[in-house]
């Protein structure tokens, strides 16, 4: 093996990079000093570029890691903990594991919604199958500004088409998601994509590299100049100018991704793979450094051997390119032929670009000329990447919100007008305009296509098990009170999984915030982390990983609502325990489980009917919520209820309507004494679930409920189609459904 000294004149350029260049690449002066210290000399431009992307927020989590480390990561089911692998790995029992993760693609989608969203879908799926798991379900969480604005409609249409075209061709069902509109997202939409895959325990592959002399392969698409500096770009505020950075957006090729999926899973079966990592943000350099640091080895790479799509690419361009649908694979020496045969079969590029060394350094050559020489460990999170404690400060609005009192809001006389307003609100109405564009039935395992359910449930073929998945975050609550609001997001996710008949087991998170250097923004971040920790500890749902997206703010509009999207995984050991959300028959009894509260804070009703935005997060009691879930599980297990649907956005009335619509049924209920009717019907106090019970099971139901401390009350009965509250006629299911189903179509067209 050739040993290379680190003599600067052997490098591509004698010109050491300047502090100015470092700043242009987004590095701080103290970071530039630290790089010089690490190298013992001034870096050249290629090396500086390497550090700039690896030390960007996107790759290093430098402004968030201190707090991320406080999240609960332990749990009996955890096979790979947060940060250890590309995605979290959870034991489902019987030798089956689920690998799942959520990731943001906000900034690329703001500039080019179609490709931005498409490549987000591609990236998250590669994170799953690079571990050896076959994706079986995808979800997404989308947030846009005012839907009536033309730009937001353009963004929404582009994002949805991008997700659809990529995910549909890739051939994995998109089974769930959320869509929310608020003016705070006018400049910065949020696009979070989630994927979950299944793998046999013990058949996973790690993102590592070791074994001196083992060949390093790059496989999949050829490398072009797309997305150069994309990672660094993602860490900058969006300004008018950054629209001119358009080449930073990459183009996705779902066909290549599908081939890469099949070839990757096939190559793992050969047993010849040492380690593997996909190439997303920061491309080759990111996978080289992370795998080498993890395996405590080095690499010698000939960049000219990388299959290239464009001519005359510079070393830094090859290293940083974010061309999609590529993988880096370290293979056991002597097993090259087996590996190459698989990629040949799938007609994919497969090239040896270097080998593993014992130097713990990454040495890059271009036409036999050394062009960069950096220590792997110093580039990565947990190694030499910087870690910052950011200042945080409670914003003035927080205390203002707490002054809110329900008595300041006049109770509307006409409840029907509120109901009609909410049904026709884009945040409440059916999202079928969006979901019909996603293939949700490919894979023949989506159990919730024909069964309305609070979570998406996907059967694990070849077993009796199913996984339940949901993404949740009411960012209005998180803005009002980050700690409580984020705990609510976790609780709502757990409630959805529980209503579906599943057992919540773990979460992944996508933390979308503004600029972390703004103390009031960082306060939101810190609060959200604390709330998430609290709730995840309570629900025993460890955090398996995820993604942080800062800088979702523009200079004129300020930051988006703090949006810590929670992606939760639940498990059904037997698919038979699946519980549906729809009322089954006229005459069934409707019960509310959980307590009614005189609260309208942060509700959709308060925000859009009264146009009041200053209020605290809604009522929430973590302990009571948890206890309620336990009794709900028991009701489902003992088959004492025939439907369960959680009370969320739009309150009890909307929950009832959503249960009524699938089978064209109605409801007649009575409100509770001592609680304002608007709060009873449209308030969003947490910890409540609407269930329906067969009359013949009423006694057994009451008996079981009486053994628990969870409050419950009889609301009324399922009717043939009338929607009645205290004998007041608020509509019919037919009329309400026809509005609810078509709100987005009316705004966005067919």
């Amino acid at each position, binding site marked *: 093996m050739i040993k290379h000294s680190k003599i600067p004149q052997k490098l591509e350029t004698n010109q050491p990079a300047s502090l100015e260049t470092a700043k242009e690449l987004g590095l701080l002066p103290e970071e530039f000093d630290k790089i010089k210290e690490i190298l013992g000399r001034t870096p050249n431009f290629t090396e500086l570029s390497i550090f700039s992307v690896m030390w960007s927020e996107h790759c290093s989590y430098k402004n968030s890691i201190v707090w991320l480390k406080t999240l609960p990561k332990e749990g009996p089911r955890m096979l790979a903990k947060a940060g250890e692998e590309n995605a979290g790995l959870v034991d489902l029992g019987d030798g089956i594991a689920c690998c799942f993760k959520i990731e943001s693609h906000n900034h690329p989608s703001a500039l080019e919604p179609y490709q931005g969203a498409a490549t987000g879908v591609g990236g998250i799926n590669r994170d799953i199958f690079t571990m050896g798991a076959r994706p079986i379900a995808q979800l997404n969480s989308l947030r846009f500004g005012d839907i009536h604005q033309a730009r937001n409609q353009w963004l929404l249409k582009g994002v949805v*088409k991008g997700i*659809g*075209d990529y995910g*549909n*061709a*890739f*051939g994995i069902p998109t089974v769930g998601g959320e869509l929310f509109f608020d003016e705070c997202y006018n400049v910065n939409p949020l696009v979070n994509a989630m994927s979950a895959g299944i793998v046999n325990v013990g058949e996973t592959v790690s993102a590592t590299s070791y074994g001196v002399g083992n060949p390093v392969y790059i496989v999949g698409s050829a490398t072009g100049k797309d997305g150069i500096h994309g990672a660094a770009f993602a860490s900058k505020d969006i300004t008018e100018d950054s629209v001119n950075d358009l080449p930073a957006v990459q183009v996705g*090729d*779902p*066909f*290549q991704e*599908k*081939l890469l999926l099949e070839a990757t899973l096939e190559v793992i079966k050969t047993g010849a793979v040492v380690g593997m990592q996909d190439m997303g943000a920061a491309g080759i350099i990111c996978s080289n450094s992370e795998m080498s640091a993890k395996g405590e080895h080095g690499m010698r790479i000939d960049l000219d051997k990388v299959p290239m799509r464009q001519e005359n690419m510079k070393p830094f361009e090859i290293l940083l390119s974010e061309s999609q649908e590529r993988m880096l694979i370290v293979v056991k020496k002597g097993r090259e032929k087996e590996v190459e045969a698989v990629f040949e079969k*799938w*007609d994919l590029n497969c090239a040896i670009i270097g080998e593993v060394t014992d130097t713990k350094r990454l040495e890059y050559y271009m036409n036999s000329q050394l062009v960069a020489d950096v220590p792997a460990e110093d580039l990565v999170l947990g190694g030499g990447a910087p870690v910052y404690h950011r200042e945080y400060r409670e914003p003035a609005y927080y205390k203002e919100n707490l002054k809110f009192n329900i008595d300041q809001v006049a109770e509307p006389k006409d409840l029907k007008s509120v109901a009609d307003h909410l049904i026709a609100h884009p945040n409440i109405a059916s999202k*079928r305009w969006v*979901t*019909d*564009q*996603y*293939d*949700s*039935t*490919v*894979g*023949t*395992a*989506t*159990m919730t*296509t*024909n*069964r309305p359910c609070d979570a998406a449930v996907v*059967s694990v*073929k070849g077993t009796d098990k199913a996984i339940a998945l949901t993404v949740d975050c009411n960012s209005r609550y998180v803005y009002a009170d980050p700690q409580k609001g984020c705990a609510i997001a976790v609780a709502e996710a757990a409630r959805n999984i529980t209503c579906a008949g599943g057992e919540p087991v773990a979460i992944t998170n996508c933390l979308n915030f503004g600029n972390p250097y703004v103390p009031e923004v960082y306060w939101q971040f810190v609060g959200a982390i604390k709330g998430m920790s609290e709730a995840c500890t309570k629900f025993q749902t460890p955090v398996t990983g995820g993604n942080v997206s800062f800088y979702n703010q523009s200079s004129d509009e300020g930051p988006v609502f703090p949006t810590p999207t929670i992606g939760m995984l639940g498990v059904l050991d037997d*698919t038979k325990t699946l519980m549906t959300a729809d009322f089954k028959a006229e005459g069934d009894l409707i019960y509310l489980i959980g307590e009614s509260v005189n609260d309208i804070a942060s509700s959709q009703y308060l925000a859009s009917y009264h146009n009041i935005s200053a209020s605290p997060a809604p009522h929430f009691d973590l302990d009571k919520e948890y206890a309620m879930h336990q009794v709900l599980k028991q009701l489902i297990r003992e088959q004492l209820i025939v439907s369960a649907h959680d009370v969320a956005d739009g309150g009890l009335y909307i929950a009832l309507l959503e249960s009524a619509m699938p089978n064209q049924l109605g409801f007649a209920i009575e409100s509770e004494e001592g609680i304002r009717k608007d709060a009873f019907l449209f308030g969003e106090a947490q910890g409540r679930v609407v269930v329906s019970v067969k009359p013949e099971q009423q006694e057994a139901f009451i008996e079981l409920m009486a053994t628990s401390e969870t409050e419950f009350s009889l609301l009324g009965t399922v009717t043939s189609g009338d929607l009645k509250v205290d004998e007041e006629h608020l509509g019919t299911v037919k009329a309400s459904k026809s509005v609810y189903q078509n709100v987005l179509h009316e705004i966005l067209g*067919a």
Partner: protein
Amino acid sequence: MKFGVVTFPGSNCDQDIIDVLSKIMGQQVENLWHKNHDLKGVDMVILPGGFSYGDYLRSGAIARFSPVMQEVIQFASKGGYVMGICNGFQILTEAGLVPGALLHNANRKFICRNVYLKPATSHSLITSDLDLNKALKIPIAHGEGNYFARPDVVKEMEDRDQILFRYCDEHGNVTAESNPNGSLANIAGVCNAGRNVFGMMPHPERAADPILANEDGLGIFESILKTALA
């Protein structure tokens, strides 16, 4: 019965149909690789859904030239049974094995949802055992499923009873509102003049397992077995 399910690069419903044929219907299934010329002696070839070769030029246009398709075309010309579902139907039209073409959906969007199908004839292998008065609930999932053929061709197909399925409402009424993609005369599935090649856009294999709470598609597979084995 021995079925052959072709896997093209980009096929993504191949495993789904294999699962239904082998696990639900209990039949023998061979997976046929697009680069091979061997049909492995199967009784019927299924071209599954997906995005063969990325569907980049036109859906099915490139797949039609793959090595295995040369054998499938031969097989069909000798009267062998061939069925194309979704992308498979698109490939069949590109190969000229069934008449017509599949254009972009009228609303220019990919559509995935349950639709209802009215079997138009019992006189075909895949509809032989279906109740002509019952609407089948079957999902569609396509961006290019808008069936088109010249009026004289459609006329000829109607005269020869080559229309197999029409989109309808849940009560079986063939209406403009129940046409999801703009297909001419609500056509959802057809066969060739020789009645041995069948194409349909909806996915019966996605409605053939109790776990999915919809088994309306089973009748199509049962028809095949009953008639072919009779």
